[in-house]
């Protein structure tokens, strides 16, 4: 494989995949929980939570990245705590890139999953309650299977967003080859140097191919799950 990709290009691709997989995997359960809160519960501060979730979608990514740097940087309150308590370093590390990608992908995932939860008939959940299922069991046995297509769609959307995330990442963790230089950062870097056009074009094609595969996969999985649920 390495004969048609240089080491730098290869490391950018594999880093991007690693960052996106971690970002998606870690934020998905939180996204399901938050989506359920927003769809099914009424509580004080719900509009605030809703706004907070959507903030990364409407803020300039640079602002989000800077906010992450202030909070999770080595001197930031959360960053210092994580480093002292768990030895997790985020600033200028690939883990920080994963955090930035997760934060940016989060609202998209929540939106997709929330729509799926709202489409589930609450009367089915009530029926499950009368049959002896407590609230967590109702969620696990009725809500979750019925929103699976929405979760898959949300996860793929989040993964694609994480693969393409640029502004917050470069602001928070910079553009260090082999550590934080993801595909978009690499494309940007190649475009900054004379003669980098060809390498940038190769990465653009790869990014396009990964996005297309993700999209087709989500369509296919979503349809398979929906068929399994609605099978007559």
């Amino acid at each position, binding site marked *: 494989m390495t004969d048609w990709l240089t080491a730098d290009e290869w490391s950018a691709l594999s880093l991007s995949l690693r960052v996106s997989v971690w970002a998606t995997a870690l934020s998905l359960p939180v996204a399901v929980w938050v989506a359920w809160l927003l769809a099914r519960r009424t509580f004080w501060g719900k509009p605030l939570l809703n706004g907070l979730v959507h903030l990364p979608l409407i803020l300039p990514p640079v602002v989000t990245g800077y906010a992450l740097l202030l909070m999770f940087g080595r001197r930031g309150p959360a960053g210092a705590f994580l480093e002292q308590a768990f030895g997790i370093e985020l600033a200028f590390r690939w883990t920080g890139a994963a955090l930035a990608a997760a934060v940016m992908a989060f609202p998209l995932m929540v939106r997709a999953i929330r729509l799926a939860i709202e489409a589930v*008939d609450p*009367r*089915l959940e*009530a*029926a*499950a*309650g*009368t*049959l*002896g*299922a*407590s*609230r967590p*069991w109702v969620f696990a*046995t*009725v809500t979750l*299977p*019925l929103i699976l297509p929405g979760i898959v769609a949300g996860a793929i959307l989040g993964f694609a967003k994480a693969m393409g995330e640029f502004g917050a990442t470069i602001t928070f963790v910079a553009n260090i080859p082999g550590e934080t230089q993801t595909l978009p950062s690499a494309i940007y870097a190649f475009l900054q140097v004379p003669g980098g056009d060809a390498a940038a074009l190769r990465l653009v094609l790869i990014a396009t191919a990964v996005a297309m595969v993700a999209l087709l996969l989500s369509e296919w999985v979503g349809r398979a799950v929906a068929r*399994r*649920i*609605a*099978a*007559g």
Partner: protein
Amino acid sequence: MTLSVRLRHAYPGFLLDVAFDAPPGVTALFGRSGSGKTSVVNAVAGLLSPDAARIVVAGRVLQDTEAGLRLPVHRRRIGYVFQEGRLFPHLDVRQNLLYGRWFAGSDAPIGPVVEMLGIGALLHRRPGGLSGGEKARVAIGRALLSDPAMLLLDEPLAALDEARKAEILPYLERVRDETALPILYVSHSIAEVARLATTFVLMEAGRVVRAGPAGEVLSDPDVVPALGVRAAGAVLSARVEAHEADGLTRLETSVGPLWLPRLAAAPGSPVRVRIAAQDVILARHRPEGLSALNILPCVVTALRLGDGPGALVQLRAGEDLLIARVTRRSAEALGLIVGLEVHAVIKSVSVAQADVGRTEAALDV
């Protein structure tokens, strides 16, 4: 009392204030749509949290707001059969049936319930492909298998056409007769209620206007206006005697024989026959040379003259009560008064097959 319900709940512009007690058997909650029937059932199930309530089922207190006690929905052991079935679309029929059974920790075999409801052929199908009648039966089975202390049926037949209703009613009668479960049955069909109910609770605008044994309430002339005069009718208990050669079935009532078009029931089986008030003709003397076959000696027990041309007459026919709807003119011409002996004339063909139901086993002994 097996079921005791007291509840108050203020909706914007609607006050629900209900109290009734019911013995074992089927308690019918009857009333127009919007009278609050479903709210009562939801409060019993725990899906509605009333402002004030005390609900006791078979000695178990489900809710007592004064004592600050409220069992959550999933611990009430209520088998709720919803109007729309509410089967889980992602599970097949068998998994739907097993759902409540698993949470109840029950190891009762599903065979008897499957057999009783005739759903054996559906077990591996998805709810999406079932007909309305099949869905209703599966929903009843699912509720029964959750090891309930009580069944709630909220118009389980309302979404079905007449043919499907006729198909399900015998199954409901079997549920009533073969399980000892108290049943709260919401309906606005008097024919269903007459076939199934032991106790009748009539609701109007969020209140109970009448509650009591079904035979008594259904034949009460003062209740009829609330039911609608066309729906009025009482229930006669009878026993199938013989199927005769000319296509009629002879039944024995406490006041003499009753001939009806051939019934599906076997000789010896107890049935209840709904006689619509408008199908009863009254005569002072036993009529002769009449085509109608059924002439039952009765005593007038109550009389209600309406504002219009009609009059309602309650009659004691042996152990049962009948109700007849005649004109005021006839009532005056016959000189009807309470205590008068009359003959009730009923055309055999006026009693439809759907008006005849099986009797609960309790009346047998």
